[in-house]
Structure formats: C-alpha cells, structure tokens
C-alpha cells in the first residue's frame, strides 16, 4: 500500500497510546522513511536535547512502497537523535518487520518519553498495548524474540528489539529485527533501551491497498523487476556472492582500511572474501555460507546465511552457535577482519553472530576494537584493563573475547562500547580514532577513493557509506566510471549520490536496487502508488531538500562546518602500498566547491536562497 495515513503515537512516560492522521502536506514533500521521519523529528524535538534523555523521540517509519509488490519494498527506518554522534540518526533495515508495521495499518510509530519500567509494544492491527518486559530485560535479541513468540503463541509475529549491549549503554547498539537484520548504525538501539523499550512486536493482517493506480503500479513494478533480473549485478552477482564480493576488489584497488586504517591493503583479504565463504573449510569440509536470503519482496536476495565449524575454538561446546545466522556482509567482514587484521573467517562469523545476538553495529564495533588494538600495541592499554587478554592485531581470540564482553557490557567491554572516539579520548590519543563526527568509518579508505573522503566528511550522520556511495562510480563503474584517485568532479558527484540516496531511502525500497535502477525506474513506481506527481526530477529535488533539512538539524544541534573533516591520519599520512601509494585524501580540494554546489556559505550553512528554493 502507499500511505496508510495513520500515525501511532506512544508516550512511554505515561503509557498513553494515540492514533493521529499522517500530515499529508509533509508526506508530499518528504515521501516517507528517512525524509518524512526526519521532518517529524525536526519539528518535535530540540536538536540540542540529550539523545539518551526523555526529550529525545524515536520514530519507526515505513515508506509508501513498504509492503507493496515493488521489489525490495520491505524497508523501514528508525529516526532519532544519535547518542554516538549528536547528529540526526536514521538507520534503515530490511527483513520483514517494515511490511508488518504497514500491514498493521500504520505509516509510523512515534515513541516519546521514557517508560518507568521495561516494556514492549505489542501491535496487532489497531490493537496496541504496552506490556511488561521484565522477563526479557537482560536477555539477548535471540532470547527476546523467542520469549515473545512463545508468550503470544503466534509464529507470524515480527519482532524488533534491543539486546544486552544496548541495555548496558553501548553507544553503537542496533535495533535488530527478524533475528539478524538491523537498523544498525548511530546507536539507535541505545536510544530505544534508554526509553526502557525492549521490543516492538507486530502482527499485521490488513494487507495491501490504497494504491493510486493499481494497473499502472503492476506494470511499473513488473518492469522494475525485469531490470533487476537482467542486470548482472542484481540478477547474478549479489545473489551469488553478496556484498562480500567487494572484499577482493577493494583490496586490489588499495582502498581496504587495514590495521585501524594504518594501511590500505590486507594480505588476508582473500581468506575472508565472498568467494572464500563458498569454499569448503579445511577443518570440516563444509562451506561457511549456507545460502543466500532475501528480505520482504526482494528479488535480489543478497543476504548471507552462514554457519561456523562446530569444532572452531569460538563455538566449541556452545551448541547455541552451531546453527545459521545472518552474515557476513562486506562491511562487517571488513571491520571485524581487515581492520583488526584477523583473517579467520569463522572467527569473524562468530563475532558477527554476537553482533546479531546482542544488537551491535559490527562496523563501529570492529573499528573500535581496531583502535583498542593499536592502543594496546602502543602500551597505552595493557593487560590490566583487558583482564589478561593480549589485544594484538591479527588475534582471532582477542576479537572473539572483545565481542563477548562488549555484547554483555562486562569489564573492558564497557570501554569498547564507548565507540572509537570516546575510547581514544579516554586513553589520551584522540587522533587514533578513525571517525567523523564520532561515527566509525565503513570499508573504503578515502586515500584510495577520493570522493569517499568528501562523502564521509559531509555525511549527516558521521562517517558512512550509505549516505552517498561514490564507490559505485569511482571503483565499480556504475553508472559510469570515474577516476578514484582524482578529486576532479567529485563535489558534484558526491552531491548527486547524496541527494538520490536520500530519495531512495524515503521510498520504502532498498538502495541496492540502484546498482540497476536509476530514479527513472523508481519514479514510475512511486508515481503509480502515491497521489501527487513523482518524477526523477522531483525525487532529486526532494532528496536535496532532505539533505538540507538534516544539515539544518545538525547545525541546530551544534554540529557545524568545522566538523566536516577527516582524521589526521587520512589527511597527512600517505598510503603505503597499491595504486594510492603516496596519496592522502585531498579533502581541501573538494570541500569549498562542494559547499558552493550545495548552495551553502563557505562555513557550510545553507543560504536563505537555498532554503527558499527547496521549500525549507
């Protein structure tokens, strides 16, 4: 269905639950998910509020294509203020719960305040109840999911919840749905736990409706699916090898962040790659990869479902980890592997399972472990802090131990739960934190992919690849190849990717469709589903509006242009190997021009003209 036009508002402080109509003026300007959620949040909270205080709100929001037959139309987002960065946070997840919220008849759920006791929301169509969560507080995601299903005796309930890491204050805790899909970045799970909200359990049976032009929608979505099927990336590469196909590519081009970003190539990359996940293990003759998997309505199915060798040291005598779980995806494999220099595929899989089990962002977690390893090798962190564990680069034992203590918030796990920025500050070496605005980098070294440096520096939620994936053009040649080592044309390229991505993130579909689809493929699907006129041009303008609105939120929160920068290591220390050898990221060549093409002042503030043009 397109919009249900219904908003569920839940005040956790006093337990009130209310239905209200969707603001359709805003929906026409911001569509859904990221755009519309950010509009509501911007209007309702003070951007300076404490992210973990009762004045912050948390919005779970679908897009108009969520729950429809549009390929990948199962996405939802969590929009809130981030405790990790202090910026706007918007984390997007697949799986099945987005569809379930929509089929229960809701465009979004707004949580405000803080519950005096642990609770969970049980939502069955119009019936919404806050129920006690005492028996699941202190439990993992996997245990919580099981408790809810047993309690309600309904296997079709979809659950999104937080694990122990969030309860213990880990600042990059995720909200995990369907056991292993996650609204992963920026600590949205930490916000949820701070409200004493353990889980959202949803059962929707109202089905699909309210499509503006059903026949036109059928035609547009079928044509879209054909494009995905016929495309070599979405039709063959992603289902077969998943995002992990990138491991060898990015290493070969010399943009693989390694050893807390001291190096740009990792010798062990082939051992932890998508190809390696298919190969029989020496130990038990079985492959790490069990199968691929798709989220709701997805016709790509890039997801990885894997198992660990039962004799591997991480799971010996732990049968609870002998089954399947989600991962490894490329970003997790990089952070848990290359950045920590661990090339033991099953150890990475174990750490990733723990991130699923207790709701941690594996990118931020892995990157924080890498920073801790560098501090350990410098002698700043010692065995005194680590309970005797040798926190050395390349140690699979250390990685597994770090995952265990962080998941439960025990001992040194509390330090790791701070994230890289606060950890490095605590131990007196802030320059060693590989973060922007407090959020850890994803898997692309900006010395080898210049445009990504600008993307990271200007991302509205701190370092992130999902706010503008110029890797697609600079490395993969989609939609057209640009030179990764050149800064020329990158400000314009970054802006185009940022705006288009903001539009896709607001529709209810997956950004991976854009490896095959352009906005010309997406606009007819939205236009047939939603009232109003939606074209690729209007979507690009909306994306730009969203980007500027997010920027305004951050500026009001005190996150200003002087924070549009990168760690010194990436600006001063040249890459040592590969095609980028001798290069740093030349951010200074790109940033002023970027501000100009954005219509911002030289301090990075949207001008009045820009705001007026975009209707802000």
């Amino acid at each position, binding site marked *: 269905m397109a919009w249900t036009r219904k908003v569920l508002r839940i005040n956790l402080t006093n337990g009130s639950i209310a239905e209200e109509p969707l603001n359709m003026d805003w929906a026409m300007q911001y569509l859904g998910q990221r755009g519309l959620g950010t509009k509501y949040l911007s209007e309702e909270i003070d951007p300076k509020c404490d992210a973990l205080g009762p004045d912050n709100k948390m919005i779970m929001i679908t897009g108009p294509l969520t729950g429809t037959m549009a390929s990948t139309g199962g996405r939802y987002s969590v929009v809130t203020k981030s405790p990790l960065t202090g910026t706007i946070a918007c984390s997007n997840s697949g799986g099945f719960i987005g569809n379930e919220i929509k089929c229960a008849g809701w465009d979004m759920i707004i949580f405000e305040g803080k519950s005096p006791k642990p609770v969970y929301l049980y939502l069955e169509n119009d019936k919404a109840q806050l129920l006690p969560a005492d028996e699941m507080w202190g439990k993992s995601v996997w245990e919580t999911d099981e408790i809810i299903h047993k309690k309600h005796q309904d296997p079709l309930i979809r659950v999104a919840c937080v694990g122990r890491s969030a309860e213990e204050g880990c600042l990059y805790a995720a909200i995990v749905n369907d056991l292993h899909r996650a609204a992963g970045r920026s600590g949205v799970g930490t916000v949820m736990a701070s409200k004493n909200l353990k889980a959202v359990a949803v059962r929707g049976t109202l089905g699909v409706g309210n499509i503006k032009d059903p026949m036109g929608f059928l035609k547009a979505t079928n044509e879209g699916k054909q494009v995905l099927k016929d*495309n*070599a*990336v979405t039709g*063959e*590469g*992603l289902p*077969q*090898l*998943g*995002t*992990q*196909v*990138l491991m*060898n*590519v990015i290493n*070969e*081009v*010399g943009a693989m962040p390694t050893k807390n970003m001291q190096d740009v190539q990792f010798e062990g990359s*082939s051992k932890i790659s*998508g*190809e390696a996940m298919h190969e029989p293990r020496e130990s038990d003759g079985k492959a790490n990869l069990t199968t691929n998997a798709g989220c709701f309505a997805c016709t790509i199915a*890039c997801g990885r479902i894997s198992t660990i060798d039962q004799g591997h040291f991480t799971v010996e005598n732990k049968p609870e980890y002998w089954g399947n779980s989600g991962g490894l*995806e*490329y*970003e997790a494999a990089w952070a848990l592997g290359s950045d920590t220099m661990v090339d033991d595929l099953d150890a990475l899989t174990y750490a990733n399972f723990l991130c699923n089990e207790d709701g941690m962002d594996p990118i931020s977690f892995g990157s924080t472990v890498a920073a801790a390893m560098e501090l350990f090798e410098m002698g700043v962190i010692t065995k005194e802090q680590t309970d005797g564990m040798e926190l050395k680069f390349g140690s699979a034992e250390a990685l597994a131990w770090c995952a265990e203590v962080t998941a439960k918030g025990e001992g040194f796990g509390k330090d790791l739960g701070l994230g890289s920025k606060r950890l490095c500050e605590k131990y007196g070496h802030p320059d060693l934190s590989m973060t922007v605005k407090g959020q850890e980098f994803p898997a692309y070294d900006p010395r080898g992919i210049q445009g990504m440096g600008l993307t990271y520096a200007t991302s509205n939620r701190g370092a992130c*690849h*999902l706010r503008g*994936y110029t*890797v*697609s053009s600079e*490395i*993969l*040649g*989609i939609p057209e*190849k640009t*030179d*990764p080592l050149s800064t020329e044309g990158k400000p314009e390229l970054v802006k185009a990717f940022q705006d288009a991505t903001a539009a896709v993130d607001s529709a209810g579909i997956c*950004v*991976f469709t854009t*490896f095959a689809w352009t906005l010309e493929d997406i606009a007819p699907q939205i236009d047939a589903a939603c009232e109003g006129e939606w074209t690729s041009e209007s979507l690009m303008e909306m994306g730009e509006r969203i980007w500027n609105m997010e920027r305004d939120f951050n500026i009001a929160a005190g996150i200003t242009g002087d924070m549009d920068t990168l760690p010194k290591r990436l600006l001063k220390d040249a890459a040592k190997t*590969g*095609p980028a050898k001798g290069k740093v990221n030349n951010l200074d060549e790109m940033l002023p021009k970027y501000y100009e093409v954005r219509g911002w002042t030289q301090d990075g503030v949207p001008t009045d003209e820009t705001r007026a043009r975009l209707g802000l």
Partner: protein
Amino acid sequence: MEITFKLYATLSRYLPPEAKKHAVKITISAEDTAFSLLDKFNVPRESAHLVLLNGIYLDPDERNKPAFKEGDTLAIWPPVAGG
C-alpha cells in the same frame, strides 16, 4: 614475461585447476593484451567489466593494446557491487 592473472566472482570458473586464491602465474608474450588473455582462458570479453592492471582500472579501449611488463597483476571481475 610472467604476470599474475586473477579472475574473481562468477569468472573464477574459467581459472585453470592449478590456480590458488583466484590467481595463477602465467607466461605471456610482449604482444599479449587483456583481451587476448581473456580469450586464452575462454572468458567472454563482455563479461569482463572491471579490469584492473596493478589495481588501476584499464579503460575498455586499452584492453586491446599490449600493456604488460614483468611482474604485473591483471585482475578481472564481472559487474559487481555491494556496500
């Protein structure tokens, strides 16, 4: 001269059995090109989307010209993406 020839993702199946970690050392002539090597291993030219010579993208119009020197690495992928 000897170079390292790598095929990844769905192109891996075209590698000879002696290949390890998706790579094989091969002896080539000075006249060889990226296309001639693809032909030698029966890799359809249209499948080779990402062609990297020592990690640097080789433009399609360069793939029919001799470009190798001793010790080079040629790595090839079909269209791939992720993130």
